[in-house]
């Protein structure tokens, strides 16, 4: 299926959702003559809706031969694993960094990325790499830039 055939309706749906949120949660202008905080979001929602409709019309009305060859490959299991893995890793890294601190979270995240996502098994190299990166970051942030890094809520 051509990408535009589902992209157009998705964009239009997103715009409708945005418009509903804007009308529901953003108050209208309080001063006469001033557009107010709601006006701009509504203009944006309407513009996005227009663009979604435009893509849909182009995709469904034009003959397949005249359509631009913008196709999207289906997500493979490997891609889903890597994308999901990196996103989960980022979330886990942030969570552990808040609870256990930078010095525990960083080597953990590096080792997880290397072993879990890259499939590396050279443990000695990985341990040296993880501890070196952590040490360099600690020196750079804490000592050179004097930027505080999380020490861990559970450990404090």
């Amino acid at each position, binding site marked *: 299926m051509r990408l535009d055939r589902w992209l157009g309706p998705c964009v239009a749906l997103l715009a409708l959702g945005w418009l509903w949120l804007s009308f529901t949660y953003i108050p209208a202008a309080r001063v006469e003559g001033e557009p107010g905080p709601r006006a701009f979001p509504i203009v944006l929602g309407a513009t996005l809706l227009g663009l979604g409709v435009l893509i849909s019309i182009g995709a469904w009305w034009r003959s397949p031969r005249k359509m*631009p060859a913008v196709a*999207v490959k289906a997500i493979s299991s490997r891609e889903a694993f890597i994308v999901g893995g990196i996103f989960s890793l980022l979330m886990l890294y942030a969570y552990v960094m808040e609870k256990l601190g930078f010095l525990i979270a960083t080597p953990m995240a590096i080792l997880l990325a290397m072993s879990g996502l890259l499939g590396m098994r050279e443990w000695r190299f990985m341990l040296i790499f993880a501890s070196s990166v952590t040490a360099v970051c600690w020196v750079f942030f804490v000592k050179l830039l004097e930027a505080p890094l999380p020490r861990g809520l559970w450990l404090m």
Partner: protein
Amino acid sequence: MDTLAQAFSAALTLQAIGATVLGTVIGLFFGSIPGLTFSMALALMLPFTFSMSQTPALALLLGVYVGGMTGGSVSAILLGIPGTPSAAATVFDGHPMAQKGEAGVALGAAVIASTFGGLFSLVVMMLLLEQVAAVAIKFGPAEIFALVLFGLSTICGMAERSLTRGLIAGVLGLMLMIIGLDELDGVARLTFGTVQLQQGVNLLVAMIGLFAIPQVITTFLNHGRVKSLEIPSDVRASLPSLRQLKEHFWLMVRCAGIGTGIGAIPGTGGPIAAFLAYDHARRFSKRPGGFGKGELAGVIAPETANNAVTGGTMIPLLSLGIPGDPATAVILGGLLLHGLQPGPMLFRTHLSAIYALYIAIVLAYVVILVVQIWGIRVFVRVLRVPPHLLAVCIIVMCVLGSYAIRNSIFDVYLMGVMGLLGYFLQRIHIPIAPVVLGLVLGETLENQYRTALILSEGSHAIFMDSGVAVLFFAITALTLGLQLRSSLRK
């Protein structure tokens, strides 16, 4: 004179020089590795500038920008793969020269041309900036709104395949900007009671996520699939002879002019300038048949032009606050972060800071000359670091960088979400640069529009009463119209 002395004392401190050197080397490194962009390097470096004072912080960012633009030529010549899109035209003759065993001459010529182009555009920038700013200082909310709208129309240039997709990306960026407290009314918009969201989607956090995470995902996906880059072992840059320089001097001047001019037009950027300059060099060459087979002018022309873009893009950025490409959008973020509001007032309030930036750019080119001429062998060795290990380091830098912005774990989560969004947008061929542009310019666009209407008591005639505003609306319409025509033809 006092201002100039202040600028020199700010730009020539040990911290500022160190920051320029570090930034330039990082820029060269990111620019030369295909797949790593210097926009990403800029976004990653921004949080590191937090604890720095103004001049060193901006010197670091400018170093990354200038170094990144130049670095692309290294892999273009040695590997035949441009490190940045701006270096794509350098491949045509740079790589054939390397294959003929003239890699050193090509690298040397590229660095001299880059330095010449960069410094030429700096001089033009110094001459023009204050003139443009002097005109812009008379602008009111209506004119600024029209100007920012024109700035947003540069999305057309960043739209890559389709104007519609570029516009969708721009609107998404503007929507992200909406989230948070409304500056004029103090109303929370779409925060759903989340305290952290009241400050809005932080621009820097969004940029780190949007630029860096998709790249990390791509590198992880390519791990084990793509052959690692084979970099020649014995590489030494050699300076072109005086005769060669004399022969190509006027070509460099013309190409520097092309680059500066193109750079000053928002939404164009290095690749266009480089290809135009390459085409110009071929057309006016006495040996057009030699192009594509290792002609020195084929390296000099694009490298002069793409580096001349750096000064050109600074003209609308510093005088009007309009970033011309993703990299200058990040630099705009850096300027704002360090208390410099780009625009006409900048030259009245922070003139010494502007002069200090000029000095930092000159210094960055000196560093480029030193690193690429004498340090190229060390540099090439550094390029051999496997990309997947770099990607792991980038993950750590993304997390620490986004945390350091406001010491907030929430920002790290937000960065992850932005990264995922960036990847999926890329996946469905929606460009990321317009999202960033929307985020950067959105607030000014909305605030100036509303302020203009408050001043006119709700009458939209205020936008038509100003000749400057009408002119900018016309240019915006023309830009969109031309892009639409080109899209329809495709």
